[in-house]
């Protein structure tokens, strides 16, 4: 019975991992670089929400305001960090995101005080439903519902809107998309405006469970990378499946073998995937560049 409830909470956690993983792959496909700072963007935004909450006292209003601000924050990061001299190459942009990772952590430490970690107010109801002897936490259930809804929204966007179609086109062959008049720079900005609130949402789901501090996103960022590899790094929706695999396995490992092996098991899954199925469960083969 324990195993089953561990698996269920693993799935819930896995979907949150999957969401961050989705952000990484989405940014990678639309802007050309997966952002190492994706987790810390969420962390920083969660701190902003926390500040707003301390100021006026209503966690839901703070979260709502934060989500609106995070759209701007995403756009700002793109314009200031990634856009200038962006022809410097992928490696350069990758290092920029790493610098941003450091910068956001340092800014959180400087602006939001040394008394970290903070307890963050729960936005989701406590307690849970008992189902055949297994207790399922409401918070898990709602977080699953949220992630599934977001996934569905993206599927709808890709399938039915012009914006989604342009994202798919850029993800597949950016040069050809440009030939058809797709403004890739503007699309990248929009991608970051979408990534901003998604990262905040992950922060809001994580913070009540494991406190709020500048390094809170480090483990989930790594899980998300592993999930992306398992999902194939090219498949947008494969990331959620990858997230579930990682979430369930690491949950089982930390319950039965000890928490210090959770990260190691995710790394092992990632390496095994790379060795056995280099393109992941859902990825398509990438033609080697000669």
């Amino acid at each position, binding site marked *: 019975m324990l195993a089953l409830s561990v698996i269920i909470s693993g799935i819930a956690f896995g979907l949150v991992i999957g969401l961050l993983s989705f952000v990484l792959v989405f940014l990678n496909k639309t802007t050309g670089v997966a952002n190492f700072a994706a987790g810390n963007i969420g962390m920083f935004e969660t701190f902003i929400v926390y500040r707003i909450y301390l100021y006026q006292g209503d966690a839901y209003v703070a979260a709502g305001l934060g989500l609106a601000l995070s759209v701007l924050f995403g756009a700002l990061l793109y314009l200031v960090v990634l856009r200038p001299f962006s022809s*410097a190459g992928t490696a350069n942009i*990758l290092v920029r995101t790493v610098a941003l990772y*450091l910068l956001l952590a340092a800014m959180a430490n400087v602006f939001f005080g040394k008394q970290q970690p903070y307890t963050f107010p729960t936005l989701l109801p406590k307690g849970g439903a008992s189902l055949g002897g297994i207790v399922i936490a409401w918070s898990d259930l709602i977080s699953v519902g949220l992630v599934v809804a977001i996934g569905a929204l993206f599927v709808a966007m890709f399938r039915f809107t012009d914006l989604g179609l342009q994202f798919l086109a850029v993800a597949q062959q950016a040069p050809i998309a440009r030939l058809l008049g797709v403004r890739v720079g503007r699309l990248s900005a929009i991608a970051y405006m979408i990534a901003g609130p998604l990262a905040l949402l992950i922060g809001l789901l994580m913070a009540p469970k494991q406190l709020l501090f500048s390094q809170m996103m480090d483990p989930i960022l790594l899980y998300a*990378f592993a999930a992306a590899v398992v999902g194939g790094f090219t498949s947008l929706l494969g990331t959620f499946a990858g997230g579930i695999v990682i979430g369930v396995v690491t949950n089982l490992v930390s319950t039965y073998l000890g928490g*210090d*092996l959770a*990260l190691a098991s995710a*790394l092992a899954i*990632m390496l095994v995937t*790379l060795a056995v199925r280099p393109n992941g469960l859902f990825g398509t083969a990438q033609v080697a560049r000669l």
Partner: protein
Amino acid sequence: MLARARENVGWPLLGILVLLGLAPLVVTEVSMRSVLVVAMIYAIGAVGLDVLTGYSGQFSFGQFVYFAIGAYVMSSLREFGGVPWPAALVIGVTAAGAVAALVASALVRLRFFGSAVGTFFLGAVAVDLLSGKRLEQWTGGSNGLVAPPVSLGGIDLSSGMGLYFGALLALTASALVCLRYTRTRAGIASRVIKQNEVVAAVMGIRVVREKVRAHVLAGSVAGLGGCMLAINLGYLSPETFHVTHSIMLFGIVVVGGLGSIGGPIVGSVFFFVATYALSLMYDGVSELFFALILLAIVIFFNGGLYDLGERVARLVRTLAGPSLPSRAGRAGGGPGSPAGAAAGRDARGAGEPQASGGPDGAKVIRGASDDVLLRLEDLTVQFGGVKALDGVSLDVRRGEVHAIIGPNGAGKTTLLNSISGVQAPSSGTIVLNGRPLGNLSVSSRRKLGISRTFQHPSLVGDLDVLGNVAIGAYESHDGTVWTELAGTRRKRRLQRRARARAVAALERLEFPRARWHVLADDITMGEQKHVDIARAMGGEPTLLLLDEPTAGLGTEEIASVAKAIRTVRDSGVSILVIAHHVGFVRQVADRCTVLDFGKVLVCETPGQVLQDPRVKEVFMGTGSRR
């Protein structure tokens, strides 16, 4: 970002080390000295990371794993095994190198992004394992581990000047090994890999092995850094090795300047001194400050502090007047002289084609021997459902120039890739000298005498012409890197011989000697094609495969390449050449095969082929007439 790997960094490096040696004369404040000690300890690992990233083109965001291994292995051995510290240090460094070898062999197959993520991951896992219960017996878990002080001959190496010069000594050792590495065959080979892995493989370089070696070197010196860190701190805790430090180390290398060996040392000193100074003024903003500097440098000023220094030095030299011989002179003379030299050579080449006895003249002799060197039988290559080659049979005779022509997409480059081993055929056989090649690797085929060039030469831009040719002229890329670092007599002989072969190849192609020491980035396209051919010739092949040697060249340059090809043939090498340019084919080829839709259409002398109406149809189209 990964653009430059510098050649002449020895003197600046020496200068930096001497300055650090003299620093205690000026810096009398104890706390400032200990800041410099930490800076030097980080720099020990930073120079290794520079070799890995700047010279070998790979990423690591987890170097503190190796710092941790060095520190913990050394301290643990002393604490629980009673091993004397010098031995413990050596074992610590070795352990770091060994783990690096293990990790690298799993990660190097990934593109840089994969290895960036993988090493980052490893950094986090290592901290988890260090603080967890599993290794507590040796690591002290989250409580940490004591690293007792060390001394040598009565000098205390754990504090004061003993520590300072101990750290400087370790840094010097690390920097010299790294500098040495960049000058060995292995170091130059990894620069070719950084440029283009396929080209490297075709030159006989063992790509995976060289990449792992760079990781081992970087890991070992990081292990040494870890040992020094243990000696400095006297106490180890998992937080000391947090993955953030790994990223900072990478930042230090970038800020200091990649591909310069000395730059990362400057970066490290800059980082620790600046943060120390800031921490005196404000509390806790040092990380913020560093992150901002790093971001600003990556966005606006790619080259780092070392590059800044170079620019200043150049400015000073120009201000000091043109009388000083300087590297700026090279840059200044660059644009003018290559064109001139090339034009001179080209003019000679253009005048001579008939005089040197064109293919038709020489053909009488070679026509007599129908001795086949390379035979392709029924070769088929499939990509998905598309047949790039569809049952191609042809042969190349000894001492002939055999041209392959055909429209775009006819399968010409695929043919060359199959012969050189870059692309495995779906079916059919390739026989060289009576020996079926089967699925021999690229480098084994090179040993059997197959060399090739590429449509895009992929020279190492920051290496000079002779260096580029020499790295292609090694008989073998086997053997351990240690003997190379040590410079044993055998290795020196190998190096000399490669150089001699390179010189011979350049001389044979009559490449003007004045241009031998120009960086490949500064030579013309026509010269690049010559260097590419010379590089392939350095392997002393029996069969030379040329992929579009005339692409992007002007008429005179084409004539000059044609002359070079005839020279090579006259020295007894058989040549299979792909060309777009039919006039060029007429100049150089003894026989010519036309490919269309992956099939051989016709194989005759160029004259006959170009008269063939079917060939015209292939090139000019059938229109709607059928």
